[in-house]
């Protein structure tokens, strides 16, 4: 005879990890906000992180943005050509990049590159007792480790997305003029005429949320590494997967939110 199913135990087991994650990140966020308001402030660590997160990610972001803009212009152009809709390509490419592709693709690239780096670095610091040493020396790992990384993402991601938006549109313009036979000046003028501040803000506003989606899970998974170096790899994978999922699923709700805000304005 089969054993009776222990439903509460099964449910607990299934939801334990996600609930622990939500609770852990909420507590980490609370401590981060609390400690942001107290001294000391490690300015040099913030500058280091801005360099690591921003400057070091720039080539990856530029390549991603350029190829995204080029592919989108090509696909829209080929698809709309049949209906005589090629002149709409600049508007469509610009709007899609500003609202969605720029922020989402840049954030996903950053989640992969920076999120993995943060989780593995912090996890290694846990394994080698460096986090314990920070505490034992009467200082705070939140201040020294978490705050510089969160602030760096909040400062750098909007800037990277702004650059990605420009480069993506430039990629569209290149393909528009070379492959779709659209005049470069016409393309450029159409982008300026048809794009508006709302397009830009709808995408730009999301970047602050995406920055949190990258930095907080990465720090959380790094700090909760327990049993040696094997877990560092697991934490790194979890950080990247979680950040990517939060960006992709969060994007829908944030798009909806900004849509509502636009209607009010």
């Amino acid at each position, binding site marked *: 005879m089969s054993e009776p199913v222990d439903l509460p135990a099964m449910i607990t087991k299934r939801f334990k990890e996600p609930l622990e994650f939500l609770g852990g990140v909420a507590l980490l966020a609370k401590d981060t906000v609390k400690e942001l308001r107290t001294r*000391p402030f490690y300015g040099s660590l913030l500058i280091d992180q801005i360099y690591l997160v921003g400057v070091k990610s720039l080539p990856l972001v530029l390549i991603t943005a350029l190829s995204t803009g080029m592919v989108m212009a090509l696909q829209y152009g080929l698809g709309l050509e049949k209906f005589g809709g090629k002149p709409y390509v600049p508007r469509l490419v610009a709007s899609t990049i500003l609202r969605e592709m720029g922020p989402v693709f840049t954030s996903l690239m950053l989640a992969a590159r920076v999120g993995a780096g943060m989780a593995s670095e912090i996890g290694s610091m846990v394994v*080698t*007792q*460096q986090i*314990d*040493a920070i*505490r*034992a*020396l*009467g*200082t*705070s790992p939140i201040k020294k480790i978490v705050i510089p990384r969160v602030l760096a993402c909040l400062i750098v991601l909007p800037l990277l997305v702004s650059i990605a938006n420009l480069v993506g549109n430039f990629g569209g313009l290149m393909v528009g003029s070379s492959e779709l036979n659209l005049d470069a000046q016409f393309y450029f003028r159409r982008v300026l005429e048809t794009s508006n501040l709302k397009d830009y803000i709808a995408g730009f506003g999301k970047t602050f949320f995406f920055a949190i989606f990258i930095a907080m899970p990465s720090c959380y998974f790094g700090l909760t590494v327990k049993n040696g170096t094997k877990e560092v790899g697991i934490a790194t994978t979890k950080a990247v997967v979680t950040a990517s999922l939060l960006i992709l699923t969060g994007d829908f709700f944030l798009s909806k939110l900004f849509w509502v805000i636009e209607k009010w304005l």
Partner: protein
Amino acid sequence: MALIEVVNFEKSFGEKVIHRDVSFYVKKGECLGLVGGSGAGKSVILRSLIGLEKPDSGQILINGVDIVPFNEQQLVPIRKQVAYAFQGGALFDSMTVYENLAYPLRAHTELPETAIAEKIHLQLAEFGLEKSIHQYPGELSGGMQKRIGLARAVIMQPEIILYDEPTAGLDPYNTKKIQELILRLKAKGVTAILVTHDIPTAMAVCDKFAFLKDKVIAEQGTIDQLKTRNDSLIQKFIEGNIL
């Protein structure tokens, strides 16, 4: 009066009971050797003394103050007073030796950079490590990392030092160096607890011992007191056999 007092300390990790009703004390200027087999939970007690772990029940009194209920903020003054020398040094690998030693000074003092530099140079000279000042931890040997970890731990001139396996994995030269440093700090009146498997070092530096066995302190006392006990573990220890 005891400077460190552990009363009815109990600790479990999940289902696994690590300690049951552990009690001991250390007077000012004394060095206690906390010994026992691997996995006996020696480091758990040491970590709890500085608030890195919380006991399930019991008291940990530092200078008569129970630190168990303290949060991270309340523990800061205790951590300035109690230094922890980590097993592997636990140096910040993104910082040079100088930066590692400057870290607690910058965090807890208002000293100008020139005074910090002077203090660091003096400290490294005392530990015989002046030449490593601009090196990164990754460029140093394990023994040097441990000595620099110890130098960083004591740069704030703490009242108490907790040594977690300070000589583990070291060659005889570095073991001797660490032993000398511990004795030098002891001569300055620093109170200490030493967790170790290295019996010669423990014999050389400790005034008394506490033996952890089967989750409790099986015996404690000075070497002369312990010689009278019949326990085979203690006799092995006195004879210098590895625990």
